[in-house]
């Protein structure tokens, strides 16, 4: 359409420098994206440095004050053992980060590799990979994670593997989708025509052009991994106490809900803020990188 063309020309015009430079400039003026980035940086800071900087030991019990509401001494209140909820919320960020980083990292590396191979070679290779993916996608990702947990048993590390496996077919499908369309671009044929090795074509020619899509999806998947990890640990299938996770805190809080609802409220808010931050960041990245999206942010990633 005329407007589309004129507007996108105005946006992209004959500007100088690389695409990423342009993306950076656009991101800087993307308010939602910047807010998201700030939240995510805060989250990363607490997750990494949290256990060192918090004033209290998350397992220290204050028997004088149990199940207390927010106060100066305990801004988020205390739990049934008199442990400080604020401290535990900060410390709880770590488990979620651990699970999300490792599982999404796993899914991204595996998904991108297979997706590229599938989209580059097409034909029988693609056929074989996609038939396997079809089967994996017969399970909504949380059920697929449950299958893995059924085999390996509950635990934090196993949740990582379970989510990694569960998200792989989704990352794969998205990568393959864009890879197939990038494969049609003439510069890819050009690279094949001047004798570039397949591996280089995939990773040097195609991957940089898929990168926006991959990074946006990884960000969004990260958010969902946090949500699902929380759900699994709430169900008792992920980390076990005394490890502190937001899910466990909510689950423990549920038992004393009517006495001290704050015990569940704060870790829940922590999850919401983190996930919001990540989705904002994802939207910012998507808009500034002009990435393709699978219809909707996170549509298929629960």
């Amino acid at each position, binding site marked *: 359409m005329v407007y589309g063309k004129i507007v996108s020309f105005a946006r992209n015009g004959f500007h100088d420098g690389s695409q990423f430079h342009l993306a950076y400039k656009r991101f800087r003026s993307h308010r939602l994206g910047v807010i998201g980035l700030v939240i995510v940086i805060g989250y990363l800071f607490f997750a990494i440095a949290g256990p060192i900087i918090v004033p209290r030991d998350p397992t220290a019990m204050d028997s004088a004050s149990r199940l207390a509401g927010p106060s100066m001494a305990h801004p988020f209140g205390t739990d049934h053992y008199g442990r400080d909820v604020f401290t535990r919320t900060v410390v709880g960020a770590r488990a979620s980060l651990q699970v999300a980083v490792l599982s999404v990292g796993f899914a991204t590396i595996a998904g991108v590799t297979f997706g590229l191979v599938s989209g580059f070679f097409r034909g029988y290779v693609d056929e074989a990979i996609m038939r396997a993916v079809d*089967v994996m996608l017969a399970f*909504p990702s949380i059920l697929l994670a449950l299958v893995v947990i059924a085999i390996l*048993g509950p635990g934090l590390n196993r949740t990582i593997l379970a989510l990694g496996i569960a998200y792989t077919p989704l990352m794969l499908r998205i990568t393959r989708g864009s890879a197939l369309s990038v494969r049609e671009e003439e510069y890819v044929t050009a690279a094949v025509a001047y004798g570039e090795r397949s591996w280089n074509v995939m990773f040097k020619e195609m991957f940089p052009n898929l990168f926006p899509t991959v990074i946006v999806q990884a960000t969004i998947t990260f958010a969902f991994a946090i949500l699902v990890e*929380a759900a699994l640990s709430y169900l008792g299938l992920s980390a076990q106490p005394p490890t502190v996770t937001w899910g466990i805190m909510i689950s423990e809080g549920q038992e004393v809900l*009517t006495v001290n609802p704050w015990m569940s409220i704060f870790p829940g808010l922590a999850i919401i803020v983190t996930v919001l931050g990540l989705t904002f960041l994802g939207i910012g990245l998507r808009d500034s990188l002009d990435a393709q999206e699978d219809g*909707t942010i996170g549509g298929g990633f629960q």
Partner: protein
Amino acid sequence: MSILSYAAKRLFVSIWVLFGASILIFGIVHLVPGDPARVTLGRFADREAVEGVRQEMGLNDPLYVQYSDWLVGTLTGDWGNSLISNQPVLTLIVERFPKSIELALFALAIAVVISLPLGIMGALNRSTKTDQATLFFSQIGIAIPNFWLGIMLALIFGRYLGVLPASGSVAFTEDPVQNIRHLILPGVSLGILAAAVLTRYMRSEMIDQLNKDYVTTARAFGHPKKRIVWKYTLKNALIPYVTMLGMQFGFLIGGVVVIETVFAYGGVGQLILNGLLNRDYPIVQMSLLILAGTFILVNLVVDIVYGYLNPRISY
């Protein structure tokens, strides 16, 4: 070719996928580290019993024979017994499955009722306050963990306000009103995420369609705006929406595992969870299989509806 042969083709795909899924689920017991017989019997079974089960499970047969035996058993309703309660798995699942499906459907209905009008409104009022409110809803809806939302709703409406039951379930045949009352809180907690995702989706599809060339054509030929929006673009936007709806239903099925626990709802979801925690493999396997099967079935239906709606599909 007709819609029938198209449907037959989709059915073929579904059968393939179901076949793959059954292998995966059959594999669970064999992939668990250790002797499948012991795994099946639980940690505390004595050696003799284990040996007996080895015989019974045919563990000494080649794997494909074991699989086909298992498949035949599954298809003929011989689903084994729970290791814990020793009740037949079939009975347990038949009893609970309808409840879970009812919950998922209820949540889906909520999602549709919210997302359709909201998505369309957002798209039509792009970049206005209305649109921003729509986007805000969908953002928040995605970020709230559904189990936490469930807990909060139960606290507010169940405990503080006391207007709705905060746990349990009642069969529709027993008491329709109570049945619905028990569905509301879990349904909303489960459905909000789907509503949020679908709202975004509907909005972006609608915006996409409004920017299409055929809209320019329609305008150039003087069609009234009403017709352009409610007839021309809406149908085009609904086609992909239906596909997304099918996917969301799958995720709702996954979500019941969590939500049923929050509300002690007593469906298949809770069955799976208890099975997992107690290593009650027959229960876990069959429950997962039935949920995956439902998802596959729903996708089949969606595919067929999609084929029906979308004239471009070549049967």
